[in-house]
Structures are given as structure tokens and as C-alpha cells.
């Protein structure tokens, strides 16, 4: 009995030794503590401060038949679906409006029928055409909902007007035809014919596939690079580099090329699986696809190098890489659209390579073209700026004998 109690006591002492050691190790790394506590807090703080929860209404254009006596100004349609539709223009050129929809200048197109009164007289519901251009399944649902609200609002308006003017007037106007109108048409005189003009059907896998892919590329590049340099700094290998006739530029470029090759190889495999196995469409050119991956990798490697040059341990490098992943999930448009954030927060989001990676890959893969070409320039810019910062920092690390 005594031996058993003693054994338990010894076991507790041994376990406590591990607990104490682990806690001491963590506490004695102020950088780790800082990134462990301050990092997640900062992300939550920014999220709380920057997320408005406000989803911008669809930029809408209304096409009415030429010579129609329907209202001609956007203000007349402001109350059709408030908060859902932002009517920016009313015109007669359906083809031009459709082109603007396809070019992404507007989100929603509403085309009023040619002969609404005639259809109604004939006892048929009038159909308005509502089109949108969305590859995002969430926005596709929202557009459907907005259309439903629009039609309900229109119907309510027609019924309200009919009630106000009196059924006798309706009879007077429609004559004997009124008897042909079924109750269904009277209750819902207008319906909607909806169409999503996007080149691919909105689908969860297709939409989030490129986003996950972009996130994987960034995380891979950041983690690999961050760990590599920290390991060299801590192992004493840096002293060997300091003595050898190696320049910071040679060291950095060598690292960039290695991790670019590695990241591109992994990206190629994941890309093939994404398209070949999961069936995510790739409508754009493979060359541009590779170009985006290359730019995203270049910018992400810069972040990894920066982490590796400021982290004081492997543990902290991992922490910072994870924080970057967390920030990317929150702010990059992966889950919530970047436009849902306050404008100042959007600048932070656009500083993350993955924000541009997600948007451009989704556009290229699901639409066949990169609509926001400026994002490619930003990716290149982020990569170059981070390369220069890393180069300056590396110069200090490799040559300064402090």
C-alpha cells in the first residue's frame, strides 16, 4: 500500500516536472507570449472594429420599354426593395445594360415587359426579367431573395393601385376581359424570370475551391520560409554565412527560388486535383493561372521571410504563421466578402496576398477572365516591397556583428 502511494507520488512529481518545464519555456519567450496573447486579440479586435455586418445592396439597372409611361428616374424605384436593390440607372437599351452586367459594372438587371397591360388584359401574368452575374452561391441566393422582394413589392403596388382606383374602373378599362382574369393573376399580376448570366453555375465547391487553393499556397509558402530561416539563425549556420563571401541578396534569391519551386510543385498537384478530381472549372488560360500562383507565392514568401527574420524561435515563427492564416481566413474574403468590412479595414485586407489570390483565382477559374487586373499589380507590389524589407533586414542579420 505504502509502495503504491509512493509510486503515485513519484508519478505526480514526474508529471509536474514536465508541466513546469513547458510553462517556463513558454513564459521565458516573450515574443511567443506576445504573439500568443496579442496576436489573436488584435485579430478579434480588428474584426470587431472593422466588420460592419452591412452587406451592400445590389447595384441595379432597370430597363423599361421605349415609350413606356413607367417612371424614368432611379429615385422612383428606390422603395421597390429597399436595402436589397440600389437602383443606379433606368434606361431603354437592354443589350448595353446586359453588357454592363457581364462586365461586372452592375450586379442586377431588371427588364420590364414590353406590353404589361396587354398581357394582363389577356389574363396572363406579366413577367419581368431579372438577371445577375454571380458565381458566389451566397450572392446567388441573395439575388433570388432580392428578386422575390422586388416582385412582391411590384404586385403589392399594382393591387394597391387597383384597390385605390376601384374595381369598376378596372372593369371599365379592361371591359369584358376582366372576367377572364383568374384569381391567381389578380393576386400576383407580375412574376419574375430569373437568370444568372455567370459562365459557371454557383456551387459551393466550385466557389470555395479556388479560395482554399489560394489559402493553401499562401500558408505553405509562409510556413516553409518562416521555419527555414529561423532554424538557420538559431543553429549557428548564420555565422558560416557571415564568414563566407555570400551576400544577403544571393541568400534571399536562393531561398525564394527554392520555395517558389516547392510551392509551385505543390500548387500544380493541388491544382490538378482541384480541377481533375473535384471538378472545379478552369475557364481561363493555364498560363495566367500559373502566373497568379507565381505572384501569390512570391508575395507570400515575402511574408514568410519577414516572419523568419523577426521571430526569436521556431515556436514563435509557427505562431506568427498561424496568426497570418487566422487573419487571412477572417479578412481575405474567404468567408466574408471584403466589402462587408469598414473601408479602413479593407486596406488591411488588401495587404494580405491571399485576398488578391482568392479574388483573381475565382475570377479566372469560374469566369475565364481576371476582371480585377489591378489585383495582380498589387500582388507584385506586395512581393517587391516585402522582398526589399527582407533584404534590408537580412543585411543587418548577416553582416552586423553586434
Amino acid at each position: 500500500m505504502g509502495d503504491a502511494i509512493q509510486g503515485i507520488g513519484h508519478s505526480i512529481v514526474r508529471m509536474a516536472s514536465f508541466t513546469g518545464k513547458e510553462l517556463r519555456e513558454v513564459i521565458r519567450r516573450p515574443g511567443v507570449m506576445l504573439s500568443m496573447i496579442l496576436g489573436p486579440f488584435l485579430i478579434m479586435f480588428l474584426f470587431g472594429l472593422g466588420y460592419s455586418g452591412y452587406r451592400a445592396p445590389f447595384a441595379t439597372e432597370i430597363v423599361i420599354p421605349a415609350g413606356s409611361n413607367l417612371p424614368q428616374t432611379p429615385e422612383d424605384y428606390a422603395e421597390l426593395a429597399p436595402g436589397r436593390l440600389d437602383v443606379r440607372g433606368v434606361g431603354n437599351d437592354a443589350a448595353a445594360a446586359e453588357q454592363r452586367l457581364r462586365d461586372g459594372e452592375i450586379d442586377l438587371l431588371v427588364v420590364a415587359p414590353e406590353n404589361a397591360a396587354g398581357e394582363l388584359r389577356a389574363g396572363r401574368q406579366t413577367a419581368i426579367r431579372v438577371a445577375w452575374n454571380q458565381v458566389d452561391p451566397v450572392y446567388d441566393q441573395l439575388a433570388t431573395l432580392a428578386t422575390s422582394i422586388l416582385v412582391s413589392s411590384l404586385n403589392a403596388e399594382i393591387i394597391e393601385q387597383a384597390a385605390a382606383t376601384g374595381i369598376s374602373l378596372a372593369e371599365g378599362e379592361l371591359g369584358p376581359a376582366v372576367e377572364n382574369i383568374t384569381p391567381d393573376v389578380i393576386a400576383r399580376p407580375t412574376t419574375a424570370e430569373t437568370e444568372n448570366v455567370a459562365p459557371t453555375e454557383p456551387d459551393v465547391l466550385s466557389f470555395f475551391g479556388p479560395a482554399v487553393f489560394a489559402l493553401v499556397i499562401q500558408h505553405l509558402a509562409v510556413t516553409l520560409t518562416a521555419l527555414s530561416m529561423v532554424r538557420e539563425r538559431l543553429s549557428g549556420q548564420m555565422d558560416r554565412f557571415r564568414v563566407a563571401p555570400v551576400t544577403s541578396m544571393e541568400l534571399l534569391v536562393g531561398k525564394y527560388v527554392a520555395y517558389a519551386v516547392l510551392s509551385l510543385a505543390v500548387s500544380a498537384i493541388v491544382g490538378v486535383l482541384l480541377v481533375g478530381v473535384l471538378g472545379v472549372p478552369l475557364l481561363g488560360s493555364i498560363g495566367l493561372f500559373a502566373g497568379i500562383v507565381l505572384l501569390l507565392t512570391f508575395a507570400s514568401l515575402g511574408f514568410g521571410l519577414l516572419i523568419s527574420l523577426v521571430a526569436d524561435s521556431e515556436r514563435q515563427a509557427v505562431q506568427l504563421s498561424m496568426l497570418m492564416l487566422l487573419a487571412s481566413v477572417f479578412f481575405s474574403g474567404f468567408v466574408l466578402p471584403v466589402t462587408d468590412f469598414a473601408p479602413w479595414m479593407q486596406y488591411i485586407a488588401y495587404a494580405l496576398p491571399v485576398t488578391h489570390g482568392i479574388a483573381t483565382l475565382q475570377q479566372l477559374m469560374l469566369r475565364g477572365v481576371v476582371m480585377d487586373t489591378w489585383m495582380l499589380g498589387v500582388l507584385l507590389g506586395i512581393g517587391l516591397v516585402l522582398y526589399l524589407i527582407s533584404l534590408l533586414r537580412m543585411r543587418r542579420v548577416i553582416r552586423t556583428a553586434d
Partner: protein
Amino acid sequence: MTTAPSEPIISARGVSRAFDGRLVVDGLSFDVQPGTILGIVGPSGSGKTTTVRMLTGTLGRTDGEIRVLGEDPRRFSRRTRGRIAYMPQLFSLYEDLSAQENVGFVAALYGIGPFKRRPLIRRALEVVDLHDARHRLARDLSGGMQRRLELACALVHSPDVLFIDEPTAGIDPLLRQAIWDELRVLRGEGRTLLVTTQYVAEAEYCDRVAMIVDGQLVALDTPDQLRKVVFGGEVIEVNAQQDVEPQMLGTLEGVLAVRQTSPRRLMVTATDAATVGPRIIEGLRRAGVAVAGLEEHQPTFDEVFTGLVEQQRTRREQEAADAGAVVTGHG
């Protein structure tokens, strides 16, 4: 920049280094001539690695002047860097690379192309007897083999000057001997080596020895000369057939000191062992003591080091006492 043969390859003058206000290296001065081995010997924490890092330019100095191949290490030219090799104290190579790949990587750091590299890698691995293990991953090598691999990496670009920090730390005596043999071969090829070691006995393998304690230079000389400095002359071990007394030899010409280590054994410090030896035999015979054996004693470097540290301590105590006396006198 070419250094004339008579000029020292490495020169340090009053070099100091402080960390957080604490002096770790305190006013070191020494020269290393071309084609020689300078051993920096001292206990762990005495400032050896800090000294080497200052000499290689990987660490700045707080005070003093250093020239290596005629240049300040903080501003080494690319060409000079190509003539220098540094072997760090800790194993810092890549565990996931093979021995051959590690050496190849370091060769590439010195700008040696793939075709020219191959025979150099082979030669470097052969020098340290690792050619048969060239395909083994560094992590699978024993501690001693890893040290030799580090040495091969330092040798691969045929440097003129090698800074080797504790090449024998933590490895068995046989391997230590082998590594020193390799270092002496390199010296024989005309290279200049600065080697640190905490094993005092290894001072024997060096051309000149700088002994440092607490960051201060305790002695700087050839191994033979250091023995004389510590013991004041050459030491003769005398074994008698009967009990002996130190006084029996105290008055002999050329005898500087006599120390009794057992009833029948004396350690005699003499100006010259060859001339004083016969006088000792004769002196003891006159005192009625027959000599069983007499030979020149080679003090170990542990004894030399202990003696030097003792001298240093005595000197410091004396200086402290003198300083106290001056203060008291002024007070």
C-alpha cells in the same frame, strides 16, 4: 591585398568585448604567423568562442584592433572571405543532407561550381576520413563524425586561414588525436590555423599557445617555453634508493628549486637539465644516497595551466592588496 610573409596573418591588439557591461574578453593581444597553429586554450566560458567570432567578423568588438590578412574583420572584402574558413563550435550543418551534400553546399557558398566542386569535396572528405560515409545523412553520423564533417566543410575551399572553434569538444581521446593530426597536416601545407580548445593537454599540438582565463590572456608562448615560465626552468625527477631531503641539493649550482613529492622522490627545477643532472647524482652520492633513476620531467599542460592560473591569481591578489594599501595610505 597580399600580406608579406613576415607579417602576421592574424593580429589582435587590446581586443575587448563586453556583453551588458560585463567584460567577456579583456584586452587580448597576440599575433599568428603564417603557417603556424595558435591554440587558444582555456576553460569553458573563458571567452574563446567570443574571441574567434570577433576575429572572423561575426561579432563586433567593444575595443581594440584586429587585422586578419591585413583587413579589419568587420569589413572583410569578398576576396578575403574566400581565403578564410570558420568551423563553429556547435554542429550547424543540415541534418537532412548527406555528408557529401553538406560539403557541397559549403563549397557552393564559396562560389565553387559543380564540376570543380566534385574533386574538392572528395579530397575534403578523405582528409577527415569520411569519404566512405559520404552518402550518409548528417543526422545519422556519430558526434565525432559530425565534427569531422564540419572540418571537411571548413577545408573544402582550400582556405589560407582556418578559425576552428573547439574541434575536439565532447569526443573521445583517439578521435581527438586524429583531428589534431589532420590539423597539423594542414599546418604542414602552409595554412594558418587558430584553434580553440578547452582541453589544456592539446596545447602540446600547437606552435604557440594563448592561455586565457576569464577573458584575460594568462600566457602566450610556445609549449616548451610555457613550461619553463611556469616552473622557472627545466624539471628533473630524481628517484633515490634511500630517503632524501631537499636540503641535500639546495646549494648545487644550477638548481633553482627542489620539491619533495615522496620520501624517496624529488622534483628539481634547474636552469639546464643536461648539465645539472650529473651534479645532482654527485651531490646525493656525497650525502650517502644512491640514485635509482633520474630523468627530465615533462610537466603536463594541466600542470602548466594550473601553475599559470595560480600565478595569475597570486598576481591579482597582490595587485588588489597593493591597491588597498595605496587607498589606506592616502586615507
